[in-house]
């Protein structure tokens, strides 16, 4: 399941941060953190980073138009790549890097739909049982 979604532009500004699970990080810091990593990666290898591990979490990074989409998953989430791609589809037609409330709703829905039954059940159990 997706714990959080971050949309960050190339300047390192966090355009939106959606928390769906346990993972929490300062939104503004996250944009800067991602931007600096991508810049460094570009300098060293000429490529962008598309995956990072942070303690118990797995960060999937993809480019949707001119923005970076970052989804945070459990470290052993086997559906992480597929889930990230599904959410990225929402941002495909993004104009002028503006994230509206409707886009946020669509991102949330895409995140929920991308989770498999087992992930949804585990998420439900951790909140309700």
């Amino acid at each position: 399941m997706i714990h959080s979604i971050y949309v960050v532009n190339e300047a390192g500004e966090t355009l939106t941060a959606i928390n769906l699970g346990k993972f929490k990080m300062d939104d503004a810091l996250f944009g800067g953190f991602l931007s600096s990593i991508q810049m460094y990666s570009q300098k060293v290898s000429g490529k962008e980073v598309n995956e990072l591990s942070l303690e118990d979490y797995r960060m999937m990074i993809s480019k949707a138009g001119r923005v970076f989409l970052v989804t945070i998953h459990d470290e052993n989430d086997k559906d992480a790549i597929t889930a990230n791609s599904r959410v990225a589809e929402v941002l495909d037609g993004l104009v002028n890097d503006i994230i509206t409330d409707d886009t946020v709703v669509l991102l949330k829905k895409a995140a929920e739909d991308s989770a498999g039954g087992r992930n949804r059940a585990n998420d439900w159990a951790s909140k309700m049982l």
Partner: protein
Amino acid sequence: MQVDIQYASEPIMAALLIIATIILVIHTRKRTRDLPADEKKLGTPLYLSAIAISLLGVASFVNYLINAAVWVVDPLLTYFQLSNIAPGLLTIAGLMILGWNRYYAVPIVMMILTALVAILFPVLGVAMSPMVFIGMFNLTLYILPIGLFGYLTIKQRRLTSFSLFLIVLTYLMFPLTAVFTDPIALGLILLLRFFGPGIAIIVFLKSDIGFTLELGGYSAAVIVLGFFLTYFQDSPIFLAMTDVALVATVILLSFSAALGVISGTYTLGRWKTSRNISTLTLGIYLFTAGIAFLMVALNNIGFFGFSIEWEYIVMILGVVVLIPLNLSAFLALDWKNGLLIPFAISIPPVLLLLLNYPIHPDDIAYRSLIMAITGILQNVIPFALYITLWRRMRKDNAPGRSRALFLAVGIILLLIAAAGGNLLTIVGSTLIIISFTGWLLAVTGYADKLLKTEAQGE
């Protein structure tokens, strides 16, 4: 009215399931209250599960009425229909949890088909019993909830999901009672069936509880009470129903025993963190007093065969059990010089009984007098000590003082109950259950909440 023992367990099962339902609803309300508005819908599967569990309870009660020949309108069909809606709802809840919304139609269609089979088979004169189909649908509908709650138990390692898994699994064990007719095997199956709702009641009520001895103590109190009440229905006292007061007395004593074991377990659980020796002795008293009253109740229904040995054991237990209560009162006041007194006053009646064995206790000279003196001292001493503690705390306006007050009131009620020389009266057993309720309120801190004497922030 003689009812087979497995059917005698059904009203108890029904009561446990209804209590589990109420506690599950309260748990769900608490959990959803803390969730953001767009996540409140996460409570729906648990509410549906609660409705399903209550329907299983109603089905159990109908099953009992059928065996007792009270329910006569299409009895078995009514039972199967009720027990069919429950797994249907559990399956819908499971689909909601998994987010497989597009499959809702499957359990709904199966439930409708069940109803149609039940109605149409007799009308169309189909030779096959509708129960075959209904039973088949019934079992199919249980697959998803059992699988899901089982998976969540393994994955999440939470007792709450384990208890839901157990409720569904153990409920399905009823047909086994027709296969295993050996009394021990039958007793074991009934005990296992009570485990499901018994554990659910505890873990949803106290969701921070782990897989500990504390959980064992609480669930044992609930399950053993259910077990006792089941077999009580098969005892000569209950079957004859000539002495209703005695039946009520035994039931009240068994409830008092359960309250004692619960209070004792709670207090011993508190001791694990406080390491206060007074808490330990009080916990031991409440726990053993609960067991002792259960033995009195069991002895009274002839469970031990009215043997002279058990008369002695129950009598000696009645004296010895009060030692830790006295110790806890001395320790609460930090009067360590008096710690030998509880032992000293218990020796004469125990010695008198042991020296006269195997004469029937009623025929031992001066037994009543010596036991009465010890009994009065064993109650008056802790009463006076706890009252002293309460007065001191009240003078200092200390928080938590109502614990001492409720303990003292409970002790004096026990003394009044025993004053007639026989606890086995309706008045005596009523006073005993009030005592145990008071003690439970005292140790759990509810006494302080009731009298608004709790510490700030509690």
